[in-house]
């Protein structure tokens, strides 16, 4: 018996044009409802959430609507003595929130507002003998953290502090039979991890480890009949994979291997015309995470209404240029 292919059908009345202003309004309003249930319940990912929202605003060209000093003050208050940042005040420091903090400060050109020396020291301390990185002192290992570590340090221009050869060796050891990457050696390939590993190899200038045609084929096969991209074979499409898959394809110079028009249609269909924002799939609830990745994907697909986005660091290209960061592309 054949397994039915998982996909969605785009409703005929789904949005077909970009509601950029509505998305900017949605993000701006999101940060203001600080007593709102959704807002409070997501405090454990506040720093990531702020990065999503602020980058979305920056890509929409409306970062100036956000309160710069309030944001910087929040980021400062999340730095711990060890150097790492937590997601909210009083929570524990973690690499995921630390990268978001460094990205936010880069967006605002305000890295001098925090103790960057301590960040470098802390990130460095998380690298293990096999080259991998812990996410925090509790020892979870994941290629996401390898990306976070090198991305942080390259934004701080201190990449040389890490053992890059070992870090690369670990990431390459997570490459699978399909040319794609998983969380740890032995883990199944997943587009999100592919983005992290390809991005990590781009930051460190080791993209030659990738078999671009093999990986590119696996990535372009993520596109389903609806035009949307899934994260693994036999899974449903989701707007966030538009970003993970597309950015990876862009870095390895294979972006043209997907049907851009069909993908744009899918992404636009995931907008909520009423509230602004993007959902994972047409008709679902919107959130800042999918809103950023929807906008960023449209930027990679050539939508001129959105600012050009950097495929490795998911920030406006102009900010990465200003920061003087070197990245490799095939």
């Amino acid at each position: 018996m054949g397994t039915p292919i998982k996909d969605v059908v785009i409703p005929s009345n789904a949005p077909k044009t970009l509601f950029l202003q509505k998305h900017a309004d949605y993000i701006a309003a999101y940060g203001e409802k600080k007593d709102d249930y959704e807002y409070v319940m997501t405090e454990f990912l506040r720093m990531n959430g702020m990065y999503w929202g602020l980058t979305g605003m920056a890509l929409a060209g409306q970062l100036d609507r956000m309160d710069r000093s309030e944001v910087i003050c929040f980021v400062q208050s999340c730095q711990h003595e060890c150097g790492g940042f937590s997601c909210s005040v009083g929570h524990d420091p973690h690499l995921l929130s630390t990268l978001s903090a460094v990205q936010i400060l880069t967006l605002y050109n305000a890295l001098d507002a925090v103790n960057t020396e301590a960040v470098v020291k802390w990130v460095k301390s998380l690298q293990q003998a096999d080259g991998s990185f812990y996410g925090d002192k509790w020892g979870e290992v994941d290629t996401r953290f390898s990306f976070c570590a090198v991305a942080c340090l390259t934004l701080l221009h201190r990449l040389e502090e890490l053992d890059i050869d070992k870090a690369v060796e670990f990431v390459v050891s997570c490459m699978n039979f399909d040319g794609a990457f998983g969380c740890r050696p032995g883990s199944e390939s997943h587009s999100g991890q592919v983005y992290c590993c390809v991005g990590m190899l781009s930051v460190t200038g080791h993209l030659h480890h990738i078999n671009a045609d093999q990986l590119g084929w696996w990535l372009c096969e993520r596109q389903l009949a609806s035009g949307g991209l899934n994260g693994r074979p036999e899974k449903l499409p989701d707007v966030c994979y538009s970003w993970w898959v597309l950015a990876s394809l862009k870095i390895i110079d294979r972006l043209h291997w997907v049907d851009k028009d069909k993908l744009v249609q899918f992404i636009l269909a995931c907008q909520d015309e009423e509230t602004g924002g993007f959902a994972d799939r047409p008709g679902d609830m919107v959130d800042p995470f999918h809103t950023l990745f929807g906008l960023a994907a449209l930027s990679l697909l050539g939508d001129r209404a959105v600012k050009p986005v950097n495929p490795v660091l998911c920030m406006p290209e102009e900010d990465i240029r200003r920061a003087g960061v070197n990245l490799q592309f095939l």
Partner: protein
Amino acid sequence: MHGRLKVKSTAEQQEAKRKEREKKLQIYNAATSKIFSKKKDGELDEELLHLCGEVLAANPDFYTLWNYRKEVFLELRKSKSPTELQNLFLAELFFLESCLRMNPKSYGTWHHRCFVMDTMPDPDWLRELELCNQFLKYDERNFHCWDYRRFIVKRANVSPEAELDFSMSKISNNFSNYSSWHYRSKLLPLIHPDSGQPMGVSEDALLKEYELVQNGFFTDPDDQSNWFYHRWLMGRGELKQAVNSVSVFQPEGRISVSFLRHVQVGKSASISLECDGSPLKNIKWLNHENKEGHSTLWITFFLFIPFRLIGVILPIAESWTLDVQLVINNLSVCSAQIQVLAEEKNSRKRWVPSGLSSRFSQEMSSVKAETLQQELEAITQLMEVETDNKWAVLTAVLLMKALDPQKHEAEIMVNLDKLQALDFKRVEYYKDLRSRFIVEAAIDAMDRESSSLATTLSLPHRGLTKLYHSELLTLLTSLNLSDNQLRDVRQFGFLQSLRELDLSNNCLTTCHGLQNLPCLEKVVLSNNQLSSPESLATLQTCPYLKQLHLVGNPVVEQEAGLEGIKEILPGVEIITQSSS
């Protein structure tokens, strides 16, 4: 917010929801503020455990609270008896199980379970394996659970054979199970190791896998899992490091060495040069982009005269021998030798890997021809039934390419055209694949004419969308790629000997990639889409450029554009009208 459907609700429902949320919020706020204050006061006790549990049950991604629980356990370990501890940990496993049932995809929950198993006095690993079985029955693709399973397998020393049986049982249940196929690719090299095989798996074991996966794609020909696994089985040999070419340009004192694989000269790797047996010292290498990063092509300059002064006598009007050696961690990896004639401006040589019918066949497959032939027959059978199955057509193409690209050339091209029609979304993938095969056939042809230096390549009107393998074309002096569909020339930096380049009638919008080509004299870019002088700025880095053909590009349609080009490329003859 994954997979949460937006539903329209009445004002009444909304009000009820608001009230419910307000209540939840109060409870949440009270619990978290108590948690934080207890933590601040160092009260790492069972009450803290309880409070964290209340929040985590609804909010398992609140990672800080999992950390607090770990701290409490580490504290309790100091005071509790082993039995008390064991019971506490058992309760924790029970709690975790209920959290996982509600949210089986929370990173923090799974990681905490690893912590508990590693910290409790008497862990029951086999019970955990059973738990994985249950969770994978419920969702056979949950990668968190698969990863947890691998953690358990390692700790409990479960044999790879037992795990292979488990993957088999999942596949028998449902062929469409990518996670299981993936697992097999990891287990087979452990169970049937064969270091002689590129995938590290013995031939016999691979044959059995072929049989299994054939069952899969005959059962469900549209399922990706089977096909990706099949492609892995077809294998991919590792290319051995070797010198591809050496080129010595005497007037400039430039030596370029190209390798089959990437290397980073400078850290642990070095390229040593010997001239008639005397080592050249203090050589600085840069890659084809004038940088220090990984590359297959490395270039150095040296002056012949000071070079003589340091004691190496170059016999004028005679030949000398240049020995090149790649050394990594003090071990010689590969070497090559070339005769340099004193009167020769450019002495060069390229090497063809021996023992292969095509230098690309190893990259396509490392499996025996006999096996590939059998596979091709099976796929052909399938194609007769499933005429529109793109997976079968693509697999047939790859098999033919691996078997005998020359013999099957026409059929491969027909099938690649068919694929473009069958799978429109990925039409550009098939076009690039086709372009790759065309260039590979051309390089194979050059390899066969081993007597010739093969310095010209002409591939006009071939529908090329990309120039593959430019890193192998370092000795070309003339390249004709006119009337193709090239969109960019990003990979052209390897063409270090190129004097003439014809790119007329393509789709180029920029010359980015044509930088630092030290021999380039003539470039034909007629009928492309170059629209500004800036799109040609890269050519400033080619010191010997004499002639540039720009007929039929938007940039020369306006006087200002032409003036701009003359300004950035002074001394270059710009041709803007066709000669006929």
